[in-house]
């Protein structure tokens, strides 16, 4: 797990971390990897491991500045 966790506000609202522990939903950080080596990152907008821009999906990549980035509203999570 990275030392510098991405902040909630900077992560695309469509990113989901499918971690091994059944906890990818429910909290306010559905993109939280918990264990990066064993977590599948998924874009629910493109429904895949590649984003709408065909780039790789991950918390470090799915951030502001990426063409397909959509900010999360605080009450959307």
């Amino acid at each position, binding site marked *: *797990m*990275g030392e510098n966790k991405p902040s909630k506000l900077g992560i695309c*609202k*469509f990113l*989901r971390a*499918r*971690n*091994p*522990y*059944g*906890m*990818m*939903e*429910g*909290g306010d950080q*559905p993109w*939280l*990897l*918990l*264990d*990066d*080596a*064993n*977590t*599948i*990152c*998924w874009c*629910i*907008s*493109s*429904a*895949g*491991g*590649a984003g*709408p*821009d*065909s*780039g*790789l*999906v*991950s*918390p*470090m*990549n799915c951030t502001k500045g990426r*063409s*397909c980035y959509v900010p999360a509203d605080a009450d*959307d999570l």
Partner: protein
Amino acid sequence: MDTRKEKFPYGIPGHNLSEIEREIPIEEPPVWPINDKLKIIGKRVNRIDAVDKVTGKAKYTSDMKLPGMLYAKMLRSKVPHAAIKSIDISEAKSLAGVHAIYLIENTQKEGEEKNNGKFPMVKYVGQPLGGVAADSLEIAKDAISLIKVNYEEKPFVIDLEAAMEMDAPIVFDVPITRQADGGDVGEVHDGSKGQGNVRGPSTSSFFGGPRGDLEQGFNEADIIVEKTYRTQVQTHMPLETHGVVVDWRPDMMMVYASTQNTNAVRNEMASIFGLPKSKVRVVCDFMGGGFGAKHSAGSFGPMAANLSKKTGRPVWLMMDRQEEHIAEGNRPNSIQYLKIGAKKNGTLTAIQQRSHGTAGVGLGAGVGRIAQVLYPCPNFATEQYDVLTNAGPGAAWRAPGNVQGAFGLEQAIDEMAEKLNMDPLKYRDLIDKSEVRKIERQRGAKLFNWSRRQPAGSGKGLVKKGLGVGQSTWPRFVTLDSSVEVKIHNDGGVEIRSSVQDIGTGTKTILAQVVAEELGLQVNDITVNIGDTFFPVGPGSGGSVVTGSITPPTRNAAFEAKTALLKLVAKKWETDSSELFIENGQVGSKKDANLKMPFKEATKLMRTSQISKIASRSDDYGGFQQPWGLAYGDLGSVQFAEVSVNTDTGFVKVDKIVAAHSCGRPLNIGQLESQINGGVIQGISYALYENRIMDTGTGHMMNANVDQYKVPYSMEIPEIETLIVEEYSALSSTDAYGIGEPANIATAAAVANAVYNAIGVRLHEIPITPSSILKALNKVS
């Protein structure tokens, strides 16, 4: 603080059972004694839905039939890497019975500079491109066959090792700049700086990062085991495939889903379509199994919703078996390098692990944390790399990473034991500090009769017998967003409500057991209504979290409801409610044995039609290792395997498995046995049969069916004996945990160790096939 102190059972009955005092929130129910003093918990209670299941009354998502419902099929890529120049739907559109065609297209945002093209880039065979809704599934299939996709094909790579090469086609189009020493780009795992197809390494987890000094650890070692192990890609094979029925009405999107997580599907659909969560309802009443890949709406959920929106009619969209294999998730493969050092007395001095695996177009192909935590070792480091390939995406798959990791680690530990001239079980006694696994080894070895094990390869005759052992650990995870409602109706009925789903493991039954035990009723007095997002949010069924997450609030809600009911009785009897109890369906008084009232009669004292209490998962007594829900302790297992290997044909038959497990307080012995049986069978299947075969020339999976993608049939399933060790940790009001993951982790390693014991030659790769056995025996080239 509103707390009180209580003494809880602590430890393992028959071994070290004692008591421990915990300070717990005042609203928590009184401590339960150990299972032999309870009436329903820990007993072999039949599933409450067993009759519905065996009579066909149970309706699964694929059984859904709604008025006006259309049937959908997805359009999928037939090439592994391409840009789509155009898609011609004219013929399909004009086919009689076709109601809607939806193509997945890129949406250009306002002011966006980059043009990603009209259609998404294709990155694997089977990637969804669109869907058709029609009057029948046959018409939908015909329509799909009439759609013409014009591809601009690009170079692709399928094979794990080929993808690591310097000149490999790039899956995600970023330049290759990689060290030429085997793939270490030395960048962050998630690819923000990594280039080429290799991403990584991941070196740490919530268990921490590297420990000590590897070099010093190996210098201190007298013996070193250094090997590379390989595991294959395993696809998902639940009886019921992925799928949904979506009925998008003007006021509500209704989703019937075969899912491990109704709440996640609801949240995803709400996010994707910009709906309030309250306008999406997801229902999963009966579910035909899921092993990790069914936590989401996938691509089929939004597709069915778009088609339903377009047509104004309900849309049925279930995957067929081929789609399930190629696009709905898999367990990534692995190449694992392991180096283990130990002193002459067996003390571990260093463990080094490096792995590469591919989850196709996704990340997450690590080998778990088992090497990090199973055996204490002062010097440890892991590097786990993802390698991107043009293949279907991986997904969580029953103990992700750890099954692969256990296969390597537990063989390496056996190899170390052999070099130390020690029995592998005794060696684990030396290096494993887990008290519960120690008891599992003792009791399991006795049941299995481990003492009959002979030196490797010493058997006579054509068919050689072998015995092996493998161990596992799995963290105790708790989903804190787990809530449940318990209602006592004024006609005596009791109802449980939660969005938690029963994926076939028996969640409904254990919830009924918990409430029945708390209310002094029978299991069949309890109605369980779960798997519906209109009810309080429950956990997803993954990571073995359900039992530990949802049974404590279930008991707590039942306790609160009972307390409210007893207050009404106390008022009538003019006594204190704390003196009252419910037992065998009767309210009674500790002070006056003559005071009795049937439960049903007591419920008539309500002024309202019901007592309703909602409880949510509270923190563990004593807190967590990590505040997000990593509990103290683990879920350990020791599995023993007996195999017969025909050295002439190479055929391996697993004759017997003894599976010794712990899961805190066992709630339902029969259901636990059933889940362990399933985990063991999957483990055998992983060790000997399952294997995704890809055509590296076309990118297609060659065995995407249930004929050539082998799973064991009944004659290949061995005798399985389970041994469940009760372990009390005093962490919650039920102190119970799941068994889904642990049941599956150690089996392949135990089988591989048994095969070695049989033939005296170690196979470092699974699946172990007749071909690999004969090659190992130098009988074929």
